[in-house]
């Protein structure tokens, strides 16, 4: 007893030491196989060292041995939540290299599918974000609504996640006769549901206390670390490629690039929430005006790119995705490099979480919206 008393009143003996904790590769909040070596002092995070490569699949190496239409099938295994945008990036890169102009109809459908994929991705992010902070209900709300988009995907191209809907030169199939009606039904439905999302999580006191002022990433740091997408835009980094380097039907639609200057976890949350409204409005502008025409242009059965280097940037749900193809004129590329948004975003985590509590690290990681196969490739 006397020993305990002595410990309680002698503050020197209560001093904490720095220690290392392995978070992952199987930690639920990493949503995949990401391992972080976290240096802690008590509950305070001193340093984070991400260790990646647990799901490295050598996609870039595999691409060197296969043809361009086949590469598209590998790209949706990277960021599976932005599968459609990844597919489109390769398709656009090949089309630009061959100077193929795709029909207007293809551009419209691609843009609508892009935004549906972005919505589905943000819905999953939202429900998982709530779950990471201990609000399990959000998970059911988000997945319930995401299901409707996945059903539309399934009806259109037969797959729910790895869609493979794009081909160099157009699309794999035309849209289903039900497509427009279902998308419009979904918009009406989801417009009513979005305020519910805000009621459930955005206004929650515990949620706001845990996100406001947490995980500050300044504009200069966001640019230096190459943090793109909603995470970068929440730091005031204007990087929406749909605005700056418009592709497909984006030049034809009116929408706002959501930028926030608060730089914290809440800002990153709110940027994504507002982006969902923008996505709905983009789809609304296009869905009734899909022009008639072919859903693909006829390409040669063996696609060979001219010698040279081609780079294509698209905006996925996570940020800037880039495809860099070096071609030596054969049917398979000489080298392919994928610039994945998650890779650059992940390494800003140390900067953001340093000095915060370990529970805040989970919240910060949630707003980065990491998809591990996208990082490891």
């Amino acid at each position, binding site marked *: 007893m006397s020993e305990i008393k002595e410990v309680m009143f002698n503050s020197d003996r209560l001093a904490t030491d720095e220690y290392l904790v392995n978070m992952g590769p199987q930690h639920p909040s990493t949503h995949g196989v990401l391992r972080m070596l976290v240096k802690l002092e008590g509950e305070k995070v001193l340093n984070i060292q991400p260790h*990646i*490569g647990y799901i*490295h699949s*050598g996609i*870039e*190496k*595999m691409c*060197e*041995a296969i043809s361009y239409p086949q590469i598209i099938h590998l790209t949706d295994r990277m960021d599976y939540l932005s599968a459609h945008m990844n597919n489109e990036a390769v398709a656009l890169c090949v089309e*630009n*290299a061959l100077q193929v102009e795709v029909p207007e109809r293809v551009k419209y459908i691609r843009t609508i599918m892009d935004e549906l994929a972005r919505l589905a991705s943000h819905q999953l992010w939202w429900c998982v974000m709530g779950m990471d902070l201990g609000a399990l209900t959000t998970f059911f709300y988000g997945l319930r609504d995401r299901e409707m988009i996945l059903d539309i995907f399934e009806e259109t191209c037969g797959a729910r996640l790895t869609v493979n809907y794009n081909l160099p030169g157009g699309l794999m199939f035309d849209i289903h006769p039900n497509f427009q009606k279902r998308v419009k039904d979904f918009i009406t439905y989801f417009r009513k549901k979005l305020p519910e999302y805000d009621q459930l999580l955005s206004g929650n006191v515990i949620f706001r206390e845990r996100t406001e002022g947490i995980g500050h990433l300044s504009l200069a*740091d966001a*640019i*230096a*670390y*190459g943090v793109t997408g909603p995470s970068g835009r929440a730091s005031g*980094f*204007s*990087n929406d490629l749909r605005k*700056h380097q418009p592709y497909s039907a984006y030049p034809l639609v009116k929408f706002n690039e959501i930028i926030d200057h608060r730089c914290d976890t809440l800002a990153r949350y709110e940027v994504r929430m507002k982006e969902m409204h923008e996505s709905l409005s983009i789809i609304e502008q296009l869905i009734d005006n899909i022009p008639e025409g072919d859903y693909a242009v006829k390409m040669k059965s063996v696609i060979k790119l001219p010698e*040279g*280097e*081609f*780079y294509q*940037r698209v905006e996925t749900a996570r940020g*800037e995705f*880039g495809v*860099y193809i*070096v071609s030596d004129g054969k049917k398979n590329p*000489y*080298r392919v*490099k994928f*610039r994945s948004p998650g*890779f*650059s975003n992940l*390494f800003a985590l140390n900067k953001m979480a340093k000095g915060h509590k370990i529970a805040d690290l989970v919240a910060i990681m949630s707003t980065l919206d990491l998809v591990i196969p996208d990082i*490891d490739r």
Partner: protein
Amino acid sequence: MTQDELKAYLLDKFPSAEITLGTQYVQMIVASADLHQTATLLKDAKETSFDYLICLSGVDYPEYMEVIYHLESVSLRHVMVLKVRTKDRVNPAIDTVSDIWITAKYHEREVYDLLGVHFNNHNDLRRLFLEDGWGFPLRKDYVDEIRIVER
């Protein structure tokens, strides 16, 4: 700046570099000894202000290894491609740019991991995806022992 203006500006500032108008972006190939100084100038000069490193990739060509930097200026919205080459395949080494663009620190680790290019003055050059002792899979002479790619 438009692509032509950018090309003219770079030709004026870096007479020793090889500057061409590529298919999409202005390309500049610098000698590996000049890389760090050139990169610093490209970032700091008001006219160019390339403050955002989009993508850093490595390619293994038959005669040389090449590291490619895709750069963008956030304020001026122009894009260029900076390239540096090394002929040494046994101990390829070029200077790091991680002190200029922080994100390069991790992209360089990836290039080191997959292509075996060493980056001088990099403060944490470890393998990123693969174990120590693994070969460099993106080199063209890599032997794919577990037959991941070739069947």
